[in-house]
């Protein structure tokens, strides 16, 4: 897979560290919380899509958007916003695409962090 230069970075670490006060250890703790939350929400999203539960799709998207913004994860933040909008617009196809993209972006983040670590 070739990197799209216009693609948003998985994490803006400088910014995230600045926001939380500079402690790398604390950032790792928050990322761990994020991972758990992401797994929970993406499972919930999958179920919500199969049940056409647009309210839950919207809420999950909204919540992931906030969590991503807090940790300066621009790519995930944007995809979470797409998910929220799909829920709001009751667009099942867009929700499916968004979920797929969320998972891809999450994997990219994991990979990026393990490379760095």
């Amino acid at each position: 897979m070739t990197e799209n230069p216009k693609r948003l970075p998985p994490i803006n670490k400088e910014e995230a560290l600045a926001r939380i006060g500079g402690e790398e250890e604390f950032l790792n703790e928050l990322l761990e919380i994020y991972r758990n939350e992401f797994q929970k929400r993406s499972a919930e999203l999958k179920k919500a899509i199969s049940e056409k539960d647009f309210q839950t799709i919207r809420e999950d998207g909204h919540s992931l958007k906030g969590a991503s913004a807090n940790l300066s994860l621009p790519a995930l933040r944007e995809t979470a916003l797409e998910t929220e909008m799909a829920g709001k617009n009751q667009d099942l196809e867009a929700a499916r695409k968004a979920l797929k993209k969320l998972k891809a972006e999450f994997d990219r983040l994991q990979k990026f962090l393990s490379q760095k670590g």
Partner: protein
Amino acid sequence: MEEERKEETSSQKYFPILVAEDDPVARRLLEKKLKDWGYRVYKAENGEKAWEILKQPEVRIAILDWMMPGMEGPQLCLRLRQVKKPHYTYLILLTARDTSFDIIQGLEAGADDYMTKPVNFMELRARLQAAHRIIELEDRLLQAQKKLIRLATTDSLTHAWNRGTIIKFIREEIDRYLRGDRPFGLLMVDMDNFKQINDTYGHQAGDTVLQNLVKLFKRNLRNYDRTGRYGGDELIVLLPGSDIYDTGLIAARLLDVCRKSKIRLKTGQKISVTLSIGGTTTDSLSQVQINNLIQTSDRALYLAKKLGRDRVILFGDSIKLEMTEKQNDRKS
């Protein structure tokens, strides 16, 4: 990088604060920051839990996420403003959205402030300082109000209830009685030879004796009884729930403890005083009105004086009860 300032003002140390946020990342982040700043942090991940914590009186600052499962931030604000808490609770709403419509909606629901997410912590800290200013202002206002109420309702010399207030309590007790609740007794207490104390030891001594008498009463009465200063050296004692029998016993006890106690004057001298007490009770009167109660007690007090002081006389419509030092006898 944001400079950590670890020092806290005393008002912030362990100050309880609620963080209601369903996103665990934001929740943990806020928790850590607030703890670093010295707060005692309560956390809630949904609206219902937030509500339970918000209701607690000691929680006076809350950071509420706009969108939460259960109950959303503005709903919480609205609901809190409808209940009566002993103190004001300062509410900060967090919102991912930042259109002016949202701001107005949030403030109209009762929020004091709002912040957009992700939270800038320097800004949050500054906004919390504003919250503390409001809270301290309210505390001072309540203290001043409390003091004013005390000044307006009590007698400055003895700290007994003042005349207007004890009369108000009697009226309330009459209302309760007339609704068929419980009887009550009323005593008019007058110190024997008060003029002589003032003449012999000076007016300051008279003040000291009065102050001590009120203290003595408070110690020997039930905590729901009320002592008021009716004027000069005359006190009124209101005895809720007491019929004529109980009222007689209580009055005799006051007579007795007063007689036995020695009051120490500022000059070091110790003196004893005796009391004359006149009283009546609602269960012994057919006409329960404030004037009737006070006049009847007054007449009883007058008789107690006339019969030689240091005694209790209780009047009803058809009874007269007398108790003196030597014999706690009853005549009818």
